[in-house]
């Protein structure tokens, strides 16, 4: 909706050149999608090459104009069809006042050769008041719908150009012209290389009448099949003909390789969306590195309108003030070099699970050997975590039950030996669980605080000895929390420790509270004292969804863990131990 000047700030921010997990900020991007923890699990179980990771670049033309005083502010949301239902897999950024947008944020998707993967693309006009908020948090129902299109992923990948143009429809079979959407798919190159660079310009042309230009840069990668894909844009520097932009962090995945030509365009920001080109030039990363080492500038050119196809050289120059190539290590780099994941298990023994002697209880003890919901979860989840655990020894606790001494405990050892919380392997957890079920009486309330604090304690204490351990607390619960605030406090305190918390929900309860704790909606957890969670350390998985086939267990469990692990290590600049 634009119009009012103070509202256009959203369009002036940098996109695509940010540093992943820099500091504590909640990141906006879809960068995290390539999950090598999942790949590795499958590969080591003989399921190699089941899928390839691809990323989708999106652009549109002739979108419908929904705004009265200005043009639409479009964003695309990509869904995948699973069992008839749509599951969101990613969002682009919002582009301001533009009916022919070329989005920078890519949407990653795993291409499974053997299945038909139907993708649905929905384009929305985002309301002004949502600028500057993480796109993940935008409620789609509050936005104007600009149309949708659908295709099968393999349709794009089998095209020689790897791109497909689709006409947007209104979803009700109407035939108005809503414009078109072009989807390009490219295989993701896994790469550890990241280039950090600072760009500045001098003597740019002045495009504004009453003040100086408000320049920003856009970088696009030239692709073999023709055209170019935008990979990042800088923030807008206002009223300045010699701007210096903030550092850009570009992964090899974004720019291809160091010799791949990049188009660098400098624009004068205009709040009505028609940014005026100040000048452009084409350089590869290798060229930029040379500019840096020689401390020389490259002149911008501008296509001349009068002398057809001729380019006019400008006085304005681009300089590279800083150029460093860094290695960004992957989750597997850490794990294979001796970093240890240590799992801990906590089982919910509260009365809301139902009397264990009653067949519809989640804790039902069946003497025929049929597994109850908790046992099923322990076995299925255990197989995955055991694979990544360094020594297969798990501290195992229960909570919310009356123990032998008659008091309700919110953290007791499952094993028979009171001084020894650790059990060995999945069998160990199963044995200790069955044993505890006979020895305790289910009670309540459901409090996660104590087990989280216990796990935090262990994680914090490990730091006195070494920094190469990372802990994961697995909480298996029916999901009805009594004290959300206490749990939140414990999570906020634990958020800066080498610890992640995996909550596995069993049974048919409503898991709304768990979704709050798993801060995926972009809302960071806040304690009553005003401390805010440094990072999201919670991941919630519902066994009900797993069993109904909506998600794959391994993918669901390991979805956020590698990113949580890496955010901890990278923030502290902890590197994998070099192999000798």
């Amino acid at each position, binding site marked *: 909706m634009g119009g009012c000047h*103070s509202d256009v*700030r959203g369009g*002036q*921010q940098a996109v695509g050149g940010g540093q992943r997990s820099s*500091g*504590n*900020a909640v990141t906006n991007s879809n960068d995290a999608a390539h999950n090598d923890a999942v790949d590795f699990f499958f590969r080591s179980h003989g399921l190699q090459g089941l899928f390839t990771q691809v990323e989708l670049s999106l652009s549109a033309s002739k979108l419908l104009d929904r705004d009265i005083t200005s043009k639409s502010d479009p964003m695309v949301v990509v869904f995948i069809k699973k069992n008839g239902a749509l599951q969101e897999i990613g969002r682009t950024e919002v582009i301001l006042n533009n009916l022919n947008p070329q989005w920078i944020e890519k949407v990653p998707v795993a291409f499974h050769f053997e299945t038909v993967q139907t993708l649905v693309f929905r384009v929305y006009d985002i309301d002004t008041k949502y600028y*500057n908020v993480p796109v993940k948090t935008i409620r789609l129902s509050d936005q104007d719908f600009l149309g949708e299109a659908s295709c099968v992923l393999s349709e794009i990948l089998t095209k020689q150009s790897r791109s497909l143009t689709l006409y947007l429809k209104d979803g009700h079979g109407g035939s108005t012209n809503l414009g078109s959407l072009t989807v390009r798919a490219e295989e993701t190159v896994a790469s550890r290389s990241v280039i950090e660079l600072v760009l500045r310009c001098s003597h740019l042309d002045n495009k504004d009448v009453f003040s100086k230009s408000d320049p920003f840069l856009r970088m696009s990668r030239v692709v073999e099949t023709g055209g170019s894909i935008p990979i990042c844009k800088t*923030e*807008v*520097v*206002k009223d300045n003909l010699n701007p210096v932009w*903030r550092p850009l962090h570009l992964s090899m995945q974004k720019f291809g390789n160091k010799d791949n030509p990049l188009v660098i365009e400098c624009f004068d920001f205009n709040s009505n969306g028609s940014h005026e080109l100040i000048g452009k030039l084409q350089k590869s990363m290798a060229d930029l590195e040379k500019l840096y080492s020689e401390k020389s500038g490259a002149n911008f050119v501008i296509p001349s309108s009068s002398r057809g196809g001729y380019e006019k050289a400008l006085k304005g120059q681009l300089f590279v003030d800083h150029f460093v190539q860094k290695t960004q290590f992957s989750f597997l780099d850490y794990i294979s070099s001796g970093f240890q994941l240590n799992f801990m298990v906590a089982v919910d023994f509260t009365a809301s699970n139902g009397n264990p002697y009653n067949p519809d209880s989640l804790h039902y003890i069946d003497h025929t050997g049929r597994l109850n919901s908790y046992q099923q979860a322990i076995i299925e989840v255990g197989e995955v975590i055991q694979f990544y655990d360094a020594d297969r020894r798990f501290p195992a606790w229960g909570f919310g039950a009356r123990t032998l001494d008659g008091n309700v405990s919110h953290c007791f050892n499952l094993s028979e030996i009171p001084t020894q919380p650790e059990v060995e392997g999945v069998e160990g957890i199963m044995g200790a669980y069955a044993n505890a079920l006979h020895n305790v009486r289910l009670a309540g309330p459901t409090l996660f605080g104590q087990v989280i*604090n216990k796990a*935090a*304690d262990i994680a*914090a*204490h490990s*730091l*006195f*000895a070494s920094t190469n351990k990372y802990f994961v607390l697995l909480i298996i619960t029916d999901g009805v929390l009594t004290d959300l605030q206490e749990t939140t406090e*414990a999570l906020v*305190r634990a958020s*800066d420790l080498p610890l992640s918390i995996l909550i596995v929900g069993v049974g048919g309860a409503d898991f709304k509270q768990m979704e709050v704790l798993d801060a995926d909606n972009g809302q*960071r957890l*806040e304690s009553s*004292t*005003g*401390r*805010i*969670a*440094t*990072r999201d350390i919670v991941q919630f998985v519902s066994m009900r969804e797993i069993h109904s086939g909506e998600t794959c267990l391994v993918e669901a469990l390991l979805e956020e863990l590698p990113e949580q692990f890496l955010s901890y290590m990278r*923030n*502290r600049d902890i590197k994998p131990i070099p192999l000798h």
Partner: protein
Amino acid sequence: MASANISSRTIEITVISGENLQVRGKLIKSDVFVTVRSDLHNKNDSVSTKIDRDAAGFPRWNEKLVVDLPMHSRFLVVEVCRRSSGRKINIVATARVPVADFIAGYLPENHLQFLSYRLRDERGERNGIVNLSVRVKMAAGIEHSLLQKQRIGAPVPLPMPQGKFHGGGGVVTGVPIWSVGYRGRL
């Protein structure tokens, strides 16, 4: 030797960034900086970051400040300030960071901690978030006198910058770290 001064300790605080900072319901456009001081100090003893000119409500400073923290100080006062056109400086929002959040011995000293806090304006209304990292500088000698009553934890072979141990001359290899009843804190 620096350890003679047991009335304060040094902390390194990196002011990373701010999020969603507003003035009168609108994101702050520019010219914001952060000051940090202990609650026992007055404003003149604050240390400040440079001004971020193109904040757009989400400023980034990434600037390391060194703060002298008196031993019985309970809070760090973190203020986000704005320089308006008439060079006047207004406080936009404040966070009081409990010293106990990073110094209670729950973690090894010298461990880099990332902490985020809710900022509030003068009326106590929420106004954004500030992201910090904090490192308590080890000063050999200080802890002996102060923490002698507390339980001694495991010695730690953490790599310590040599220069920080004034006059220690490399004697300190496994620096003892004290865990100050962290169980009680949780």
